[in-house]
């Protein structure tokens, strides 16, 4: 019976190797890999994912095989088999395991830090294009500072969706808000750093664009931000990935990456619509 378990362990190990290998090496051919990366920071994250997959995958296979070996070797003992202790005692074994696993986790953490901190700990460049994103049940809205380059103040009591005042602007009294442009899509120029200032109107939401390799929660009461540079013109989906209520399944918007000329044209058109 014990030998059957050993065989099962090996089968589990081999079956697990399939997704590890396909994800890391053959993913793009059989559409198992992540979608194309259109950001300047994304390759570091993709590389880190592959490294983690390979390291953890190999260790998993090794541990599983070792376990299978021991199970096979010591299965079905005869009654007179002598029980031996681990060489050096249990303490040596436990400390060795701790050091090995600790080193592995620490190493992954240190290398992963490189990819992650580059996005989250590095502030946006001063000349980055600032856009404000507001998430609310169940839509995203984006605000551009307009010609004067300044955002007007927010007045939550003035939010009126029927009047398309999604952010609660007060153009009657607030000069800076008069030229602010509010849009339902996130239009950005290609190859320019975007600094997205995020706030939620009501509950928790999330900003997720697969192609940008960015997923950041909106937390009500906190002003959060992400920054990124898109490298490829195209239209990509922005979805909410934090359960936010009844209409969560339908909460999405589009990221429209344009050439600089197209973006300026879009901006002009928005200004003329005001």
């Amino acid at each position, binding site marked *: 019976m014990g030998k059957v378990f050993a065989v099962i362990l090996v089968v589990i190990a081999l079956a697990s190797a399939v997704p590890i290998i396909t994800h890391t090496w053959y993913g793009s051919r059989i559409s198992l890999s992540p979608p194309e990366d259109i950001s300047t920071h994304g390759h570091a994250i993709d590389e880190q994912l592959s490294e983690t997959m390979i390291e953890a995958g190999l260790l998993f296979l090794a541990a599983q095989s070792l376990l299978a070996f021991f199970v096979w070797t010591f299965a079905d003992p005869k009654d007179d088999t002598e*029980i031996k*202790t681990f060489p050096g*005692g*249990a*303490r040596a074994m*436990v400390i060795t395991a701790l050091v090995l696993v600790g080193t592995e986790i620490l190493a992954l953490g240190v290398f992963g830090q490189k990819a992650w901190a580059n996005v989250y700990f590095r502030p946006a460049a001063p000349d980055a294009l600032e856009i404000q994103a507001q998430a609310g049940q169940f839509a995203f809205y984006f605000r551009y500072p307009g010609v004067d380059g300044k955002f007007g*103040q*927010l*007045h*939550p*009591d003035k*939010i009126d969706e029927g009047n398309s005042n999604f952010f*609660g602007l*007060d153009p009657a*009294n607030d000069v800076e808000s008069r030229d602010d442009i509010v849009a339902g899509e996130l239009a950005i120029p290609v190859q320019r750093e975007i600094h997205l200032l995020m*706030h*939620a*109107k*009501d*509950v*928790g939401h999330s900003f997720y664009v697969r192609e940008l390799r960015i997923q950041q929660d909106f937390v*009500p*009461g*906190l*002003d959060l931000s992400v920054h990124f540079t898109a490298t490829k013109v195209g239209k990509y989906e922005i979805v909410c990935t*934090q*359960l*936010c*209520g*009844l209409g*969560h*399944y339908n909460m999405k918007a589009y990221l429209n990456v344009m050439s600089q000329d197209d973006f300026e044209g879009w901006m002009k058109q928005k200004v003329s619509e005001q």
Partner: protein
Amino acid sequence: MPTFPRGELMSEVSARAVEHHAPPQSFVRKHVFSLDHKVIGKQYYALALVAVLIGMALSWLMRIHLVWPNAPIPGLQLLSKTGAPGGVMTPEYYLSLLTMHGTLMVFFVLTNAPFAAFGNYFLPIQIGAEDMAFPRFNMMSFWITFLAFSILVAAFFVPDGPPISGWTSYAPLSAVGSDAGPGEGLGQTLWGLSIFVFCIASLLGSLNFIATTLDLRTKVAEFFSAFAPRTLAFAGAAAALVILLQAGVIGSMMLKGDAGYGVASAPNVKVDSIDLYVNFAQQATSDEVTKFLRSHQASIVEGPKGAGTYRVRFAVTGLPKEELARLVKDMQQNRNIVSSEFEAPATK
């Protein structure tokens, strides 16, 4: 309590660290309120098995809904008339089932089966102890877990059904009551209560694990018991759930407003005072004006401007919109003091 040299064989330890208690006689003591760690371990497994079966059934229902959104599922209307009229699952009820599926699986399967059940069965054997350090606590932690499970399942049978905020129950979605959708009233309260009770049971269980390891130990085990993360995790979770529960039940959440949710993201809003431009009536004496201002906890902050207009700041405690309406009405009734008033733009 004797101590044992390091590295000694577990079997030898268990042969010496024996604390016998008489085997139970009655059926109830043997199988229901048992003090035996092996029986309690199996009880935890049984509970996890029931939970996993319910969770699995819920995931089938959810997948059927995803594939055929408008197909009636025979019998589902018996579970919830409003959630599945005619057996057709509503999108809201889908979220309810999703929440219950997640909660059952995370708390009552993934926490119960590997930690409580496996741990209870094998920890005393592994460290060579006769039983857990506190067998009665052990029994209690199982039955409190069962109570938590019952409270959770009860959420299926309240009028609005189970909550829709997911197993993570992030506030404010989970904390503003039934405004947030069906199930967010009583259903969410039951959910919070259930997980709070679960945390208590889990704390009892993990403290028992630690005590067992420390008291009936070998040296290596003693070292590791200090790292029991379950204790820390559930102590924190219990505290968070108390806050969530009282937010939902007492309605003390500061964000709740008349238009669904209020907003916490705008730092420039003053809700503690309202400014109005006020013209005082010509016949009003300074005594009357002073009295009026005092009775409204108001003060003049600017003026007189052109046409004798003063900017008056009123202290308010409630919501700006309601308070403003109340103030205006109040002044219209005091035309002998205030001749006209209009809202002043907010200062920054």
